């Protein structure tokens, strides 16, 4: 299976796609010589291309919002380079513009980014062979999109040696694009017309990541519960509605799986 929206180029030696060629030993060799880490880095980087139309406006908006809140373009860009998490950056600059206390800004950013600890826990078993430098890099590049895209491929049984380069290919590309677009947004400022509704591309990128995770009854229960609880709890302060939705959605998924354990769900 080619993966969600990703067409792997065929191997120049044998004509098979890397996904097919590497899952089964080929000529008694586990991998082709041409399928180097660099190649998987490249494949990760190219897997990002289809979601760039969603990531780029998110970066632009984060840059625009940051300068509108009074940050200098340099500070706006540093924020993107170091925090590298759009939703929390938008919340932070909004609070700064509202003259919030420093501890409120910090707490909000950390609470919104609590989900990265969940992503970290989810990625760790897939990257258990990776050494310290790789882990430090991989952790810095944890994002919604990077996590969502790589975990899909890892769950599909991507061979262990390919995982880190593939993940870094996605993560580094997203980081570079994020820096370029937030800087562009910070320099462009308010010149983009608001009636283009480019901010709508942000939920659309999350929707594009959500659809392939809905693979059967329990995952549908998790998604539906998570979404509805987040809507109901949206008025909670500090974006706690997002955390409440995530926790309730996970609980619903686990319970639905327990209820349907004798009926294996066909993947969607």
């Amino acid at each position, binding site marked *: 299976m080619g993966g969600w929206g990703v067409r792997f180029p065929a191997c120049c030696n044998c004509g098979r796609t890397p996904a097919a060629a590497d899952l089964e030993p080929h000529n008694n060799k586990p991998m082709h010589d041409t399928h180097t880490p660099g190649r998987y880095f490249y494949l990760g980087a190219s897997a990002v291309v*289809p979601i760039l*139309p969603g990531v780029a406006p998110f970066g632009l908006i984060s840059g625009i919002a940051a300068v509108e809140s009074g940050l200098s373009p340099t500070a706006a860009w540093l924020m993107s380079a170091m925090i590298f998490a759009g*939703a929390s950056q938008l919340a932070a600059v909004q609070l700064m513009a509202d003259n919030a206390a420093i501890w409120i800004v910090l707490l909000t950013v950390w609470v919104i980014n609590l989900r990265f600890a969940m992503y970290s826990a*989810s990625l760790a078993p897939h990257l258990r062979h990776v050494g310290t430098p790789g882990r430090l890099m991989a952790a810095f590049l944890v994002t919604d999109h990077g996590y969502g895209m790589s975990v899909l491929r890892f769950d599909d049984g991507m061979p262990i040696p390919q995982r880190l380069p593939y993940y870094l290919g996605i993560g580094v590309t997203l980081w570079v694009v994020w820096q370029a677009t937030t800087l562009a947004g910070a320099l462009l400022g308010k010149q983009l017309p608001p009636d283009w509704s480019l901010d709508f591309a942000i939920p659309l990128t999350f929707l594009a990541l959500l659809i392939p995770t809905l693979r059967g009854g329990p995952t549908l229960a998790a998604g539906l519960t*998570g979404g509805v609880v987040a809507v109901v709890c949206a008025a909670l302060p500090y974006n706690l509605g997002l955390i409440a939705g995530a926790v309730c959605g996970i609980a619903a998924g686990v319970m639905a799986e327990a209820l349907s354990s004798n009926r294996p769900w066909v993947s969607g």
Partner: protein
Amino acid sequence: MGVRMTSTQMTSTMALLVISLAAAGTYLLRLSFLYLMRNWTPTATLKRILRYIPPATLAALVLPSILLDQGELDLTLENTRMLAAACAFLVGWKTRSMLWVLASGMISLWVLQALPG
């Protein structure tokens, strides 16, 4: 802490301090299980829990942003973002393509916004 910032008064040093602390905390959250607690093996129950993190979290990010307008729930046909997202969801479900989700969502939003009334 009684320190308050305003968009006009906030010094760049203060802004950099807030950004650095926010970034440091965020990195610690990212490091949590990938590095700080790396020797800890997840149990079968935890693995089951981990499987539902992506659908639950992503849906919790998406649904409020399309169903709420200025914090108010809007399930009427006036909510063009909800209709455009529903359209994008159906297209994505059929095509399994990220690019089509984005294209169909944006185009249907622009069409809906251009419609009179």
